[in-house]
């Protein structure tokens, strides 16, 4: 018990500036052995930069650190690891063409005179995975073959496989299913009992209030305060992070007029999706819930023409004839828009400007004459979007890569607002973005639905869907099992439905 309050790492006046911008400003924090210490803050508050300095990935502009009483200033990640500090970052650092086992043991492959011993490799990897309850992941499968959630688990296992004094987790559960998150938490609690200090960054407040011992809140690079978890309700956390501005659910005014269909999907099949049909009304927000891997993203891709449907049709605007889109361009000209789940992979042109990203879908239609871009119109429109969505940037020609996650997501959405579609497909629109940006996106969804747009929103966060949507469809094992409306939805029922498709099958 004594060890619980031994200071492990002390941070004094830690500051990081890039040019004139200060990202972390004079932070003083102490982390203890055997304690889970959560870092909270909006995106861009400086959490990631702070832990990256601790992990030796970024060098501080000013300030000191002490690890176990000794001065500590890691020049590289390797130095930090040697001092016993491990970090699991938001971005996955796995080599997708190598096997799970090779990734897990990359820095210490078991070998005899340079020749890898396959048996020992797979045996050691197996032990590491089993310790974490990941018996369903084969050590021989390539990382690229795993789902994002499983990749994340492999990444965490990799960090946990090394002995460490301080473990840093930056948004570890963003891509995890609830079950996977639970097994992670139980692991973290065990590590804590062994006296390991843990720094935990997450946007999921409920998770933090269940898991953390201490909570430190950052806002705009400043350390706002540190509180024992039991003294800090989730409402209070939000308040401290954002300084107010709560989103009030607009359940009362969002009863859509159920007379005009915006989108009808009939018996669409393809890939993991089997025979899905539903109606989306104008001004309606329809949520899609389901377990990770149930086929929600795949369904949106089929509707949008990004993947080819083998059966079924899509009807837009009642009067239109049945369509089966072969390419997103057809879907877009029919009035569909899709904000993809992975904005870095297929949503944004990261190295291109805000301006180019915002107008990309509408260049021919709205911003050119005889193929020549009309700069003034383009700039005006991009600026309008930045203002109305609150995209924080220095100038419109700034590469999107330099924006925070929330602002990047707003840019990804902005291109469809410029295009002015009738039906919007949002795939995990609030994944990995902070509370304030999330509220902004909810407001945006409201605005769109009031203008009569049909909205489909996929989310892993059931509470979010219940707050935002008019109806929630549950996808299970590639089938649409049931649609709940506001008057009959309960968490339990929906969770049960989500599992329904898997009950009679041994394959999944």
């Amino acid at each position, binding site marked *: 018990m004594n060890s619980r309050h031994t200071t492990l790492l002390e941070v004094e006046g830690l500051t990081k500036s890039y040019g004139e911008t200060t990202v972390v400003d004079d932070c003083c924090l102490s982390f203890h052995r055997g304690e889970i210490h959560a870092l909270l803050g909006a995106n861009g508050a400086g959490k990631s930069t702070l832990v990256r300095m601790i992990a030796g990935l970024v060098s501080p502009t000013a300030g000191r650190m002490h690890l176990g009483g000794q001065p500590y200033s890691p020049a590289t990640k390797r130095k930090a690891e040697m001092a016993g500090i491990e970090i699991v970052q938001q971005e996955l650092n796995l080599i997708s063409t190598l096997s799970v086992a090779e990734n897990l043991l990359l820095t210490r492959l078991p070998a005899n005179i340079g020749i890898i011993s396959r048996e020992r490799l797979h045996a050691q990897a197996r032990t590491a995975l089993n310790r974490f309850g990941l018996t369903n992941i084969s050590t021989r499968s390539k990382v690229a073959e795993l789902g994002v959630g499983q990749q994340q688990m492999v990444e965490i296992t990799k960090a946990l496989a090394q002995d460490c004094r301080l473990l840093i987790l930056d948004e570890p559960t963003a891509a995890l299913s609830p079950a996977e998150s639970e097994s992670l938490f139980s692991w973290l609690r065990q590590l804590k009992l062994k006296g390991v200090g843990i720094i935990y960054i997450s946007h999921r407040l409920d998770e933090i209030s269940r898991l953390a011992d201490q909570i430190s809140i950052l806002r705009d690079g400043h350390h706002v305060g540190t509180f024992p978890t039991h003294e800090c309700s989730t409402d209070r956390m939000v308040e401290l992070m954002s300084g107010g501005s709560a989103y009030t659910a607009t359940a009362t005014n969002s009863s859509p007029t159920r007379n005009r269909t915006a989108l009808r999907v009939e018996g669409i099949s393809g890939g993991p999706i089997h025979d899905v049909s539903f109606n989306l009304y104008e001004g309606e927000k329809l949520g899609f819930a389901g377990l990770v891997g149930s086929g929600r993203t795949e369904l949106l891709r089929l509707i949008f023409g990004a993947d080819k449907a083998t059966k079924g049709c899509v009807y837009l605007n009642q009067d239109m004839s049945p369509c089966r889109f072969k390419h997103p361009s057809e879907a877009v000209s029919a009035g569909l828009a*899709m904000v993809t789940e992975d904005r870095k992979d*297929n949503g944004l042109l990261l190295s291109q400007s805000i301006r*180019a990203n915002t107008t990309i*879908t509408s260049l021919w239609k709205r*911003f*050119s004459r005889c193929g020549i*871009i009309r700069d003034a119109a383009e700039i005006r429109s991009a600026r309008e979007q930045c203002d109305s969505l609150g995209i924080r940037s220095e*100038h419109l020609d*700034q590469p999107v890569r*330099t924006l925070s996650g929330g602002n990047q997501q707003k840019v990804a959405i902005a291109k469809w607002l410029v295009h002015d579609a009738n039906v919007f497909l949002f795939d995990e629109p609030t994944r990995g973005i902070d509370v304030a940006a999330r509220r902004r996106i909810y407001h945006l969804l409201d605005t769109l639905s009031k203008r009569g747009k049909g909205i489909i929103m996929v989310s892993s966060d059931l509470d979010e869907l219940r707050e935002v949507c008019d109806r929630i469809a549950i996808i299970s094992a590639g089938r649409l099992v049931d649609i709940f409306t506001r008057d009959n939805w309960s968490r339990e029922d929906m969770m049960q439905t989500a599992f329904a498709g898997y009950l009679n099958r041994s394959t999944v």
Partner: protein
Amino acid sequence: MTRYKLIRLAVDYGALLLVLVGIISVFSVGSDNFLQRSTFISIANQIPDLTFIAVGMTFVLIIGGIDLSVGSVLALSSAVLGTLMVDHDWSLISAIPLCLLTGSVCGLVSGYVSIGFRIPSFIVTLGMLEMARGATKLVTDSQTKYIGSAVEPIGEPLPGILLSPAFLFAIASVLAAQFLLKRTVFGRYCVAIGTNEEAVSMSGIRTAPYSIAVFAISGLLCGMAGLAQTSRLSSADPNAAVGIELAAIAACVIGGTSLMGGRGNVISSFIGVLIIAVLQTGLAQLGVSDANKQIITGAVIVVAVLLDTLRNRLNTREARLV
């Protein structure tokens, strides 16, 4: 905003021009004959072929492809021109369209096969490199076709300005291509495709027509290069322009075009062409042996790219997290 643009211009061209001026100064000091009008006129009349090729290559690299067949396609276009004029007594005016068409068709075929069947352009254009060279030998019977004065006007300096029509066309193609790249929807989409093709596709844009068009443009420019070279040499040589693809890629890369796609600038590529040409001419004037010339040219390419990489690293570091 304007200040920002000025800085961008200085960063974009400043370093490159500095390299060019540096090389010219070194040669001026080293050789009494270098800093003379005749030197620059001779450079100006030599570079059109490489300029045309580098302009097309810039676009191909920007969309994330590569075109290795440019030298052979140039030779084939030239061979078509030579054979028509020598063996079939066509006039220059009537043979030019067929020469340009030959280049375009080769580019179109490469583009269609590469994009339509999703085969890396490296492989497809490597195949085209062999096939076009073979076709060249077939068309010319492996003989150099001497055309003579009928084709020379294009490569000969115009009275008064001392620059050849070929050079003026090359400059015009640089300017037109830069406009196409920076100011048109087509150019914007090329850069976007090179940056992240899937994101462009998911934005509702069919990428294939743009990519194929880029290869066709590269082919067309090979045809123009073939014309320029034929007129400079007064003949169509079936073994012409072997290895010019590497010089063109070097010029683009010196100009800061990324081999990964998504970044490039036609004017910078042209400065790259100038750097290579000045280097070649200057070294020749100094009486440097061929072996040493190659070593020096290679070293300059690596140093130029190294400078560019350092510059970019600096840029991204400053731009991060603003």
